[in-house]
């Protein structure tokens, strides 16, 4: 397992896929080492891989360098603190760290924090039975999703990226790209349908 931190991973390539899955597996192990042993060496590995990505995420969403750096550092402190809450049956490491970065960003820009369900609330309806997607690991799901996204037509993949990386409404995205709003929406819908379809088929 190499620390190919900075190089783009090849698309639609089994070796690349295996590499991504292996990397996710390794990151998951590091996270549990951090949770159990407060392992600083493991934390450094997680930091080296994710910190530049979290910073890039903040920059893409409009933060200047100083704010992006600050939010990234906060996110990495959270990764250390909350490592015990990482559950590989619920999320791949990249999914978990994405949600941390996303929530920190929302908290930084708004007066109130992001509304989320509270599993400890008596009115919260617990998961009835093990979910269908618990059977396969979330790392596997993430790897599949990555492959599905890589095979989407360019314009659909682009819309998906824009909706995660641009704090703009769909009509603003349409205006920027010089295409009708309906086209933005239909590209997104098609992208989601393909993702859903591909995952759904393999789950059943």
């Amino acid at each position, binding site marked *: 397992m190499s620390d190919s931190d*900075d190089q*783009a*991973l090849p698309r639609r390539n089994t070796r690349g896929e295996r590499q991504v899955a292996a990397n996710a597996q390794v990151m998951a192990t590091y996270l549990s080492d951090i*949770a*159990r042993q407060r392992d*600083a060496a493991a934390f450094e590995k997680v930091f*080296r891989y*994710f910190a*530049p*990505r979290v*910073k*890039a995420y903040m*920059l*893409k969403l409009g933060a200047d360098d100083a704010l992006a*750096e600050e939010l*990234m*550092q906060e996110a*990495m*402190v959270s990764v*250390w*603190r909350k490592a*015990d*809450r*990482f559950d590989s049956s*619920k999320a791949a490491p*990249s*999914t978990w*760290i*994405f*949600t941390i*970065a996303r*929530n920190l960003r929302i908290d930084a820009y*708004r*007066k*109130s924090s992001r*509304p989320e*369900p*509270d599993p*400890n*609330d008596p*009115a*919260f*309806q*617990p*998961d*009835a039975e093990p*979910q269908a*997607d618990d059977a396969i690991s979330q790392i596997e799901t*993430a790897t599949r*999703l990555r492959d599905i*996204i890589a095979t989407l037509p360019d314009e659909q993949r682009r819309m*998906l990226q824009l*909706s*995660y990386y641009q704090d703009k409404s769909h009509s603003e995205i349409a205006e920027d790209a010089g295409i009708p709003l309906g086209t933005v*929406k239909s590209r*997104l819908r098609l992208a*989601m349908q393909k*993702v*859903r379809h591909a*995952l759904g088929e393999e789950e059943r």
Partner: protein
Amino acid sequence: MSGLIPDELLADYSAGRLSNGWSLVVATHLALRPTERPRLRQFDTIGGVLLDEIEPAAPAETAFDSVLSRISETPDDAIVMNGAHTKTCNCCTPSDNPVLPEPLRSAVGGDVDDLKWQRLSGDVAQVLIDTDDETTMCRLLRVRAGRPVATHTHRGTELTLVLAGSFTDELGTYHRGDVEMADETVEHQPIAGEGADCVCFAVTSAPLKFRNPIVRMLQPLFRI
């Protein structure tokens, strides 16, 4: 009718693009619909995949040391061996059965019986909710069992989440946890089901358009 949150909205919630009012209705719906949480997880996973593939941006040279010193500066209260977080808690008795789930209950400031309801008519009462969100209007509505709400259509989008009782309109029948999404193309007259008052959480992006001129005249007063 599906009674579920549409994909686009769930994806926007996952991406962190929704303003507070819409986020509140999505999160409250998710608290009541366990089957929808794996759907959200799929969208979060897309966010994770995109994070994996993003072009990295170099942190400050001192970043790692700064993070380490921030970690050592503050007490480390997060060590829980083997991740002993459970889904159930022992702090609430089983009889503790709120109508409003979190995060809505905190946003409103209590459960239905703790609130000051403003009467809109003999059959309908509301509580306005301040969400720090100028793009939406958020309110709880309580409609007496078996009674209708004035016929209206919409200027923007209206999401209605049922929290108690049920209602029926031209699109279908909705129960606790169900969401109805309506827009300019929908004119409806929701009628509360028999047997129990219907409590809903309604979020709108623009004022409703009522058919009845008297109701229209009263709209500014009730901010509906």
